[in-house]
């Protein structure tokens, strides 16, 4: 169970050959991936490609959290599952696909709803956290727990034909609360069930989350703090926006933090992970 920090096995040399000859990656990068653990929160549209590519590329340990079960209507985008998995836990289904793809990756499935009571205990076991969730309460929860536990948070989101990608709490960059100290009004929030989403948009953003997590793991990220905006119907498809640094007066990650423990995020946001249909859905 204890990873070998020293060297790669013969099986690893054979499997990861295309990366071992890659300038800027090589054996050093592969060993770093092997000795990095990542937690993927959500085995849905974003979590599916992120988990698959992180397992394929050689991340040593992957945790996958999801409390939900696979439904047919998920398969339009949640491509880590398949028809034979209908009705079973998404976390378990994801683990099965990953073990079939790369038996060298140690995968842990958490069939729980992440909340203030269990988040810190799980998150502190991992080096990098990937936010592949679908609701604003869990996004604040993950942000807060990552700041408290000192973990970088690779955050992706997708809705309709649009997507967004940001890394929070990394180097001198901001946390989610530095940008959004107050949650949006609940009536402004739309989820994939109500707003719809084109499946491959979650594929694009989920792959980019995997890439950012890899860059953090191999310590190859010189980009400024930024927000990547994607829109399938715009030209150009992608725009990169430079973001503020960490805010000195952020209540969570600033110089005098007053948020020092996890709170009740459903109350804070006025909606939670289990609200499948908000009553008003303008935005």
């Amino acid at each position: 169970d204890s990873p070998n920090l020293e060297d790669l096995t013969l099986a690893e040399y054979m499997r990861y050959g295309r990366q071992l000859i890659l300038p800027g990656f090589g054996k050093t990068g592969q060993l770093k991936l092997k000795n990095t653990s990542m937690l993927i929160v959500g085995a849905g549209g974003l979590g599916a490609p992120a988990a698959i590519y992180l397992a394929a590329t050689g991340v040593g340990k992957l945790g996958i959290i999801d409390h939900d079960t696979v439904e047919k209507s998920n398969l339009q985008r949640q491509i880590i599952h398949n028809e034979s998995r209908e009705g079973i836990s998404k976390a378990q289904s994801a683990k099965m696909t990953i073990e079939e793809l790369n038996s060298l990756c140690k995968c842990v499935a958490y069939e729980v709803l992440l909340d203030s009571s269990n988040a810190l205990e799980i998150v502190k076991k991992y080096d990098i956290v990937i936010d592949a969730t679908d609701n604003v309460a869990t996004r604040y929860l993950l942000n807060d727990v990552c700041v408290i536990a000192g973990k970088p948070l690779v955050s992706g989101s997708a809705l309709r034909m649009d997507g967004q990608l940001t890394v929070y709490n990394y180097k001198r960059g901001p946390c989610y609360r530095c940008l959004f100290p107050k949650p949006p009004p609940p009536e402004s929030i739309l989820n994939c069930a109500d707003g719809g989403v084109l499946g491959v948009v979650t594929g694009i953003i989920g792959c980019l989350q995997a890439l950012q997590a890899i860059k953090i793991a191999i310590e190859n990220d010189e980009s400024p703090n930024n927000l990547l905006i994607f829109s399938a119907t715009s030209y150009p498809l992608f725009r990169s926006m430079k973001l503020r640094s960490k805010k000195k007066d952020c209540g969570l990650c600033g110089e005098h933090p007053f948020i020092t423990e996890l709170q009740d995020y459903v109350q804070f946001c006025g909606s939670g992970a289990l609200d499948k249909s908000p009553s008003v859905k303008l935005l």
Partner: protein
Amino acid sequence: MSSLKVKLSFSGGVELLFDNIKQKSIEISSSINPPNPTTMKDLILWMKDNLLKERPELFMSGDTVRPGILVLINDSDWELEGELEYEIEDGDDIVFISTLHGG
């Protein structure tokens, strides 16, 4: 008084408040409140009065944008540019983006 050409973009759902238009070029006075130069604060109020088609509380809160909307000026977070006090320049490219939560 001269006028300023500004390119506005709406993304992440904010476009639904503006007639579902993703990009719009506008011309506004270089001094909406003479003799002061036009700032982001003036622009946001001008947008509310002249462009907003739907419930203003989903765009504004007090004299700024509502929580969950991020403003970007020429590809940079407006916090780096002075937020409401930023003085609009001719040719500015301003994005209003609502955070997405789906996955």
